[in-house]
């Protein structure tokens, strides 16, 4: 088991190193435009541009740039560890920017993930147990709605109905829980629900299908033949075996949202990490984009690690295999 975890951990480090190289290549070697132009003001002279290039280190060969970039990343810079440099736009450190925005995204994900896991799995189980009943059809209809509805439309509709018309919730924007806990919840409830809806629909469908498949297994028949109650057959024997793929999906979905909740963040004006990345990508503020991309990739790599370890706990065949 220890060996298994150590091996996975080593792989995670390798993956992060690869991601570092690829993101660097994408953003530094294939720039969509010269970032120096943004600093140079109107009608810059060639000399001014060269000066800016020199200041940003862009006049060095790519391997020197990559070496410096990796070195800074792993050993830290004057803003601390990991060294992500400073933004082109304001000269503030990328790290402080990310640290400021990360809680918004992480809290959005945490709330939504809890919601979708609980509702998705619950709906899936009910659907599977009451297969082909009205409840099942209703649940799967909901799932289809959730999967096929665009998040931006759902978000805007939710804001219009629950904030503008009914006034039950707060509007767009982010309120830190340290400022006002009720304000935080009233502003987060809609983004949570809207983001969770899509995933809950997926999870309900997946749970239903997995559970139905598992309930057809021979060991479920054995469990029934023992004289166990139907409740125990479904929850202890059925759900346990259906849960493994769901755990995998859950870990990866959460990780992907670290940099990927852009639409929800935009609709509700939460200004989290995804929003930051998109905004700065449009302004070619490369260090910021790089920082967010790295953070998101590390999140995915770590989630993979956690999922692999959890998997070994859930399924003994992995542990001993």
């Amino acid at each position, binding site marked *: 088991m220890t060996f298994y975890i150590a091996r996975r951990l080593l792989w995670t480090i390798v993956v992060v190193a690869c991601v570092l190289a690829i993101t660097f290549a994408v953003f530094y070697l294939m720039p969509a435009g010269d970032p120096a132009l943004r600093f140079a003001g109107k009608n810059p002279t060639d000399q001014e541009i060269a000066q800016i290039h020199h200041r940003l280190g862009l006049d060095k060969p790519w391997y020197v740039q990559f070496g410096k970039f990796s070195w800074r990343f792993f050993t830290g810079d004057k803003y601390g560890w990991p060294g992500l440099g400073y933004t082109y736009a304001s000269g503030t450190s990328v790290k402080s920017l990310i640290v400021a925005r990360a809680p918004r995204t992480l809290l959005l994900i945490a709330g939504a993930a809890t919601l979708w896991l609980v509702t998705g799995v619950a709906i899936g189980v009910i659907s599977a147990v009451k297969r082909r009943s009205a409840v099942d059809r209703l649940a799967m209809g909901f799932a289809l709605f959730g999967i096929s509805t665009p998040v931006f439309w759902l978000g805007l509709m939710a804001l219009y109905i629950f904030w503008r018309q009914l006034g039950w919730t707060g509007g767009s924007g982010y309120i830190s829980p340290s400022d006002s806990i009720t304000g935080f919840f009233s502003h987060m409830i809609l983004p949570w629900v809207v983001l969770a809806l899509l995933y809950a629909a997926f999870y309900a469908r997946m749970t239903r299908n997995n559970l139905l498949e598992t309930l057809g297994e021979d060991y479920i028949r*054995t469990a029934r033949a*023992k*004289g*166990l109650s139907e409740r125990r057959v479904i929850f202890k024997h059925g759900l346990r075996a259906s849960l493994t793929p769901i755990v995998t999906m859950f870990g990866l979905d959460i990780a992907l949202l670290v940099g990927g909740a852009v639409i929800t963040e935009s609709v509700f004006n939460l200004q989290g990490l995804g929003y930051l990345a998109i905004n700065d990508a449009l302004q070619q503020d490369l260090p910021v984009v790089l920082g967010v991309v790295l953070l998101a990739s590390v999140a995915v790599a770590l989630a993979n690690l956690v999922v692999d370890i959890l998997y070994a706990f859930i*399924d*003994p*065949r992995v542990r001993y295999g």
Partner: protein
Amino acid sequence: MTDPGDRLLLDVRGLTVRFPTSDGVVQAVSDVSFSLSRGETLGVVGESGSGKSVSNLAIMGLLNRQRTAIAGEVLFRGRDLLTLPPDQLRHIRGKEIAMVFQDPFACLHPMYRVGAQIAEAVRAHDDVGKDRAWARAVELLDHVGIPNAKSRARDYPHQFSGGMRQRAMIAMALVHNPSILICDEPTTALDVTVQAQILELIEDVKREFDIGVILVTHDLGVVAETASSVMVMYAGRVMEYGPAREIFAQPQHPYTWGLLDSMPSVERRLAALVPIDGSPPSLLAPPAGCPFHPRCRYRFEPCPTERPDLVAPVPEAHPDACHLPWDDKLREGAKRSVDRVGEAA
């Protein structure tokens, strides 16, 4: 000796199972009747799809009642299991009637320890603590011949060999000293040497606990070794039913003859094997008359139109479902007379 009625465990009358599907109604089991007493091993023989497994699942109440139409009576000590409410049936299942399934690789839950799965069966019907249940599981694993039962109980099923898994399944079935043990092709998935051990174990268990065993198989050799009575099934119907001694000494039905002709044995050379032509009929639309007539080498006028009843052709014979005259049955059956390997008591 006790009154013979006291030893009667199971009396199945006119069991009929239908599966409605989008293609039509599958007539899986039609009008099957048999009985089982203590100390008896009933061998149920037939090809795949002959309804042998489905009959037993129906007896265990393991068919989905909403998606199956089941008729007839399954009297277990006088109580009809088919009309029993599910929560009462649950108390008989695993306690009074236990079942061992075909594929031991798929029948144990891959994510729970073997001991825990047996302990769970203990606690399903007995209100005992976890430690007591675990101790009982270890005791049973030891009883069915698992070496180092105490430590092997902590293993997961994938750490067991096929034969050990089947032993574990038998241990699980024996938890509550059931009076009926249904074994659905218990040796099909196992090596030949392990097969013999498992059959021996089932026989030992039967004798030790004085229970009735239903042994479902497509292997007449297995039946010849262990069964005291035999029921031959084809297309969901009983073709021939009687004491094993008679079935093997004087088989009466052409289908049984076909099974015997196609059964390899040590003495018989491969070239001498005669397979039954054709394949079993679709149970969506079984043939009119005798279900076996399209494949039968002895068919004559009445076979395609009149279905033969399961009756004894002469008082001293056992019941069969065939139109052939008794003289023909006597003559052809004598050609197939088999010396049984081990005569069951």
